[in-house]
């Protein structure tokens, strides 16, 4: 009991001392919330510590807040209570809600207002465009950008007598059948089914996902993917599902990773940022290649995923100088190379890409370059520039629902996608109604 009391007293004294110390030295605290745990989160903490020890005016406090949705919702709740962080990593696909929220400080303004000179021309442009307003202002800083690529189990390919990665979706079907014959449970699975098999499929095939140039030209949008080749693609996957050429392993990525890393499925479409996780879990040789396409098209660039850093409005002016310094620090070439290598996210500046290339990084990790080259393919069209729609979390849930109805053979591909579009359009209309008057 005495020990406990002493401890309490000591704790009290320590808190007091800390308070006094803060009052005197007082580096300004900058809060940074993000949804990236594990090794990636550790790297954020490490880079932040480097920043903190490089100067004494500001102290950035990094905080892992759970999934993308959880982090966003925590920030929303905090904003309403006026306790929100300075910086927030938001999912790229959900950008429109933040763009129109009135709760953000555009990073381009923020950096300019505080004298940080950033050479935007040196950035990888498709990545930057994704976060720009129609009149060209950059609203948030691309940070953890990725794109889906095609991962395959090389040992399994050897066993089935396959030497090259598949180029077209027809190849994927043929390969899957051969892998089945060679004794594998499933041919192909996918993480992030909507992002890969609807969004990115549409991009590569140069067909629209939604009206208004995929939402880039205005907020009165409608989904169009029930009227394009996506229908045949989904119908084909449904067909493959019946004999094990395709296996549905759940939403997000954990199921697909499990199925791939355990050797159950020999082919998987998943983010380039899945690299660290796959490397850790897979006990076989694996490789990655470009996303497959239809045999009659020359594939276009793929769609970005991942997230970006948003600065939230409403903090004291002095804090933002620190925020600007920190963001500028993160975009430096050395930091970008470190981040790229440590996470599998693509570098956001050309300088960082050139540097990694010069160091021979892509010789050892060719799949990392696949993602960059696939994103930077020439000849982007209004169908393949970006995808910007409101209420992302809600509409994706509705589409996933209907895809599950298709995989479970409760609906045909056409019925399921029609229902997905009907439900999705209601959600988009609601967003437009909410934001029309601004």
């Amino acid at each position: 009991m005495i020990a406990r009391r002493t401890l309490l007293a000591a704790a009290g004294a320590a808190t007091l001392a800390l308070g006094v110390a803060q009052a005197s030295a007082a580096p300004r605290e900058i809060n940074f919330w993000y949804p990236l745990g594990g090794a990636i989160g550790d790297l954020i903490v490490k880079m932040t510590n480097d920043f903190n020890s490089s100067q004494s005016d500001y102290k950035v406090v990094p905080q892992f807040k759970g999934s993308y949705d959880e982090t966003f919702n925590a920030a929303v709740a905090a904003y309403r209570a006026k306790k929100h962080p300075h910086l927030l990593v938001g999912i790229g696909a959900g950008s429109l809600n933040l763009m129109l929220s009135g709760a953000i400080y555009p990073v381009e303004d923020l950096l300019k207002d505080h004298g940080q000179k950033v050479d935007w021309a040196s950035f990888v442009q498709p990545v930057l465009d994704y976060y720009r307003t129609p009149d060209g202002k950059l609203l948030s800083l691309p940070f953890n950008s990725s794109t889906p690529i095609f991962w395959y189990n090389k040992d399994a390919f050897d066993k089935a007598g396959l030497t090259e990665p598949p180029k077209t979706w027809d190849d994927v079907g043929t390969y899957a059948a051969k892998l089945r014959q060679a004794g594998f449970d499933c041919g192909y699975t996918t993480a992030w089914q909507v992002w890969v098999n609807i969004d990115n499929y549409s991009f590569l095939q140069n067909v629209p996902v939604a009206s208004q140039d995929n939402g880039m030209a205005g907020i009165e949008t409608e989904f169009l993917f029930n009227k394009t080749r996506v229908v045949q693609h989904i119908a084909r996957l449904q067909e493959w599902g019946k004999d094990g050429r395709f296996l549905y392993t759940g939403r997000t990525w954990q199921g697909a990773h499990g199925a791939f890393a355990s050797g159950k499925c020999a082919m998987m479409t998943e983010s380039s940022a899945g690299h660290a996780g796959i490397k850790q879990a897979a006990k076989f040789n694996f490789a990655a290649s470009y996303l497959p396409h239809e045999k009659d098209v020359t594939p276009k660039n793929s769609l970005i995923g991942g997230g970006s850093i948003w600065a939230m409005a409403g903090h004291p002016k002095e804090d933002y100088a620190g925020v600007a310094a920190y963001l500028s620090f993160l975009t430096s070439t050395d930091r970008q190379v470190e981040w790229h290598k440590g996470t599998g996210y693509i570098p956001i500046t050309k300088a960082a890409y050139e540097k990694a290339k010069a160091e021979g990084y892509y010789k050892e990790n060719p799949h990392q370059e696949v993602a960059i080259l696939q994103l930077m393919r020439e000849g982007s069209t209004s169908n393949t520039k970006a995808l910007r729609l409101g209420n992302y979390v809600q509409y994706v849930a509705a589409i996933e629902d209907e895809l599950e109805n298709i995989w479970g053979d409760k609906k045909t591909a056409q019925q399921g996608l029609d229902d997905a579009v009907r439900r999705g359009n209601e959600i988009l209309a609601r967003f437009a109604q909410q934001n029309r008057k601004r």
Partner: protein
Amino acid sequence: MIGKKVIFRSRGLPLLLLAPQLLVILVFFFWPAGQAVYQAFHLADPFGQHFEYVGLDNFRRLFNSPEYYASLWATTVFSAGVAIVSLGSGLLLAAFVDHVRRGRAVYKSLIIWPYAVAPVLAGVLWLFLFHPIYGVVAFALARIGIGWNPLLNSNQAMALVVMAAAWKQVSYNFVFFLAGLQAIPRSVLEAAAIDGAGPLYRFRTIVLPLLTPTTFFLLVINLVYAFFDTFGIIHAVTHGGPGGATNILVYKVFADGFIGQDLGSSAAQSIVLMVIVVSLTVLQFRFLERKVHYG
């Protein structure tokens, strides 16, 4: 029985004594409930910067949506399933433990344990056992040739969440049933035994009727549990899938409001849900309670 009546001289003291409780109810029930009613008639953006009065639009939208009726049906199946499984196994276990001589305390403790597990954790636990890709039990099922895939098969998904939700509630039911069983006078049972009634006959004609107050109470509690407290389990196990097959009303409130940030619709849904549960409870008291013997 004559009620006790305490007479206060002034009005101040009783009000003062009631104040803390009233304050708690006001702050934690009436205030949020009032907010829900307000929001149900508005369209709001998540950041709370834009409010628009939309009248009954949120409700109209709900009742025009096939998914909402699907959710209603899923809720019916789910809560009936949870009530039957958890009441049934609670009673069975209680009857067994009531007969056990040795180690009763051990059995009791073991059976009560799951109640201490938070719903989300219970869900994660069951998911780890039954996930088609990395679940241990799923692996065993595949070995013996049972096609188990709750990611695609809605009936299996429903069975899984019912099991997970019921498992957690069995402990609670067990405690009440055991207490109920032990309150049944031994003399009545012995008299029946002497008259030649077998154990099953005694159970059906004496024990069950005398347990009706407990059963009725537990039925109400279990339904309220299934309706309100299970979204954590659903969130951890199925996220309402596949294709909305396990998207029960309370999970839909949670998913649309707290994940999707559609506060207006979520508020409208919670009002509908409250009306449903209140009327269910009233119905139970009016019609089922007549069959209850309070001994």
